[in-house]
């Protein structure tokens, strides 16, 4: 077997399919040709309008930034949108269903889409490389900076493609999809601006001399880790979204997030110890609690019954209860989110107690109050929504529970404030009065005068909410049992047919 044939066999089928479709597509060819034409025109115009190119030692840098802007704008607009739209189109009919009855895994589908996006980006970059190389001869750029900027741009495009894939995987009707699309465009615009700003900085100062310094590699590695974690989280979430609801699809997501949480926690703890400041752990805790709160709202929308496919994966033995929070299911998700929030808050508090001399102790206290309060509200809203859906809004499917919780959150944040405004109209509000009318707003913990009130209120709310949901939670834990093999079927009517 030839090398290409062997490579073809080893490749993900989705990559081959996507690339074949891209090659056949007139749209892709047109985009590539237009991009090359624009690059050529940009260089020509720059050279023609520049008066003294030979005497300008920044000519290469200026040209490079123009070409990079064109390349990045075109790639950021084309690759993520093209990848997302293709997936969206396939998800809108039965094509994804067809994939699920093959031996291909949802993970391979998402990985294939991303690899195809990477291949198309490589194709575009390769096509533009002669123009970018040309800038070197105009002086003002160093090769390490060029390669690092290109690597950075490439990474940004792939991460944006992952964002596009994630958005394409999100469930929702056309209205939601339009909203997602607008959010995605905004993200792409921000990514373009940030990348161009970063690239301009790198090109201006040059990275060639900084390559041997920790001042360069420290932030670079930190950014790479954040980007990798974010990309990884979006990847596992995308896989979970296209995995059938009957599968144990929450497991990889929770395992990934738990691992990322643990690793980033260790990294920030080391950083905090070295720098003798609580700041890195505070940032880690804030991010972890925000993720935990979002996960709470997502968890209450999961299936409440343990499906048989999930039940088959429940282990036998004492560690069944340890894996319970990681499995698919609303109760598991709620427990996992609460553990994530609790451990994050607890770790920061313990860290501050162990190292009282570290900088940022007051920030630590504020962060604990803010995020603790926020998560208490999130818990109350999410579980009130779940209880309402379960006992009063029974016609709603479990998948819509998050919507009930979000509506409650919106009402709780706005309605008391509006009532207060109407009652005190034209009388002029004092800060402490405003604070008490923001009692349903989880983001009002900045008003120090009202914190005690908020705390009493949320505790008084959390207690009945927990009491109402506790029987359901206990039932879910009891039902989290290993699957029992079904008995042989009986009583089937066999059709008496002659062949």
């Amino acid at each position, binding site marked *: 077997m030839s090398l290409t044939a062997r490579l073809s066999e080893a490749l993900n089928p989705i990559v081959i399919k996507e690339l074949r479709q891209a090659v056949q597509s007139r749209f892709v060819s047109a985009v590539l040709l237009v991009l090359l034409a624009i690059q050529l025109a940009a260089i020509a115009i720059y050279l023609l309008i520049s008066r003294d190119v030979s005497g300008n030692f920044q000519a290469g840098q200026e040209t490079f930034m123009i070409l990079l802007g064109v390349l990045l704008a075109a790639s950021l607009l084309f690759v993520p949108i093209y990848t997302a739209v293709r997936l969206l189109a396939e998800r809108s009919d039965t*094509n994804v269903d067809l994939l699920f009855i093959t031996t291909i895994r949802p993970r391979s589908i998402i990985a294939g889409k991303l690899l195809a996006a990477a291949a198309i980006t490589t194709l575009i970059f390769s096509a533009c490389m002669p123009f970018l190389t040309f800038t070197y001869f105009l002086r003002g750029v160093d090769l390490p900076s060029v390669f690092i900027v290109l690597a950075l741009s490439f990474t940004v495009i792939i991460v944006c493609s992952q964002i596009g894939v994630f958005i394409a995987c999100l469930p929702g009707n056309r209205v939601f999809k339009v909203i997602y699309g607008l959010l995605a465009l905004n993200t792409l615009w921000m990514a373009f601006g940030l990348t161009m700003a970063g690239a301009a900085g790198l090109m201006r100062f040059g990275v060639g001399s900084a390559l041997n310094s920790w001042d360069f590699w420290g932030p670079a590695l930190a950014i790479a880790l954040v980007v990798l974690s974010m990309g990884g989280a979006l990847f596992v979430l995308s896989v979970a979204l296209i995995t059938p609801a009957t599968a144990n699809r929450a497991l990889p997501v929770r395992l990934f997030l738990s691992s990322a949480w643990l690793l980033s926690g260790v990294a920030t703890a080391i950083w905090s110890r070295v720098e003798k400041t609580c700041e890195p752990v505070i940032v880690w805790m804030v991010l972890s609690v925000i993720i935990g709160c979002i996960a709470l709202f997502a968890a209450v929308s999961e299936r409440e019954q343990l499906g048989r496919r999930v039940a088959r994966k429940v282990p036998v033995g004492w560690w069944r209860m340890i894996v319970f929070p990681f499995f698919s299911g609303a109760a598991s998700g709620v427990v996992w989110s609460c553990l994530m929030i609790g451990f994050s808050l607890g770790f920061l508090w313990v860290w501050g107690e162990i190292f009282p001399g570290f900088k940022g102790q007051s920030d630590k206290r504020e962060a604990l109050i803010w995020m603790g309060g926020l998560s208490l509200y999130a818990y109350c809203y999410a579980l009130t929504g779940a209880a309402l859906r379960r006992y009063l809004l029974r016609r709603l499917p479990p998948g819509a529970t998050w919507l009930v919780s979000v509506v409650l959150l919106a009402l709780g944040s706005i309605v008391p404030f509006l009532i207060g405004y109407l009652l005190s109209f034209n009388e002029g509000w004092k800060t402490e009065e405003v604070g008490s009318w923001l009692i349903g707003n989880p983001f009002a913990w900045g008003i120090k005068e009202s914190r005690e009130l908020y705390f009493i209120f949320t505790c008084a709310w959390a207690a009945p909410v927990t009491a109402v949901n506790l029987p359901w939670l206990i039932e879910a834990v009891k039902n989290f049992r290993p699957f029992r093999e079904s008995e042989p079927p009986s009583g089937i009517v066999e059709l008496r047919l002659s062949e």
Partner: protein
Amino acid sequence: MKIEVVNLKKHFGHTHAVDDVSFAFSSGQVVGFVGPNGAGKTTTMRILATLDEPTDGDALLDGVSVVEEPERARHLIGYMPDALPTHRDMSVHDYLDFFARAYGIKGAKREQVIASVEEFTNLTPLREKMLNTLSKGMKQRLSLARALLHDPPVLIMDEPAAGLDPRARVELRELLRVLAAQGKAILISSHILTELAEICHGAVIIEQGRILTAGAIQDLLTNHIPRRAVMIRSLGEQEDLRRDLLELPRVEAVRLVGDEVAVDLDGPEEAACELLAALIARGHPIVEFRQQRANLEEVFMSITTGAVQ
């Protein structure tokens, strides 16, 4: 290969899309899955294809549960959904190549398999054609080719003949006959009941998620017709024959149709025997006496009520 659907239930909230459905059939048999829109046919088929999980019950393919072992079951099932392939910028051959890869068929074997299914479904001349240029009939053949790539012993076909012209329907029917002869077990849903009766060994009639009746086509045609129609030609006077017929028990109506007399009988097949005996006993010179067979469409109309949940 034995396909057993066991007490299958699928509830969507308060709607019982599939409600305790059980039936079984074997290799080499073609079974029609018949019911009005919203009866639960597609839901049942999607469960069989491992795409949905039942609320309760199971489907077993030679003992392999589609609920408990979907990965194993997928190797045994070829599924043709009611939607047609719509991938953009893709040729027929590339489409089949992609799915063959997705089924894990590797190397030279893949090329052989694709060539073989292309030939079987008569797609060889169309292999370089783009999907968006294919007619509905071609797309149905392509969909069948895709379902056959991994040579599954069970085929589940959801409305494969919908929207096809008569020629394409005949071609599809012939392909199904060949596949059944090859020993594949085929479950097929369709609204074109006359066609189903021609190719199916048996049928399951479902409405509101429940099986109304199931069995061999001949049994259904015999046992589930509302009334029995008999055509009689006599060398004697038609009016005498008509008068005598009206005096006989179980005769509900008598009409003159050309040189024949059409009789509507109430009762089982034995009633027709008794009628013939009575007419001969009364001396009528009967030269032709035939029972008109009901078709599946009449059976369907007589059994179903058209109610939806």
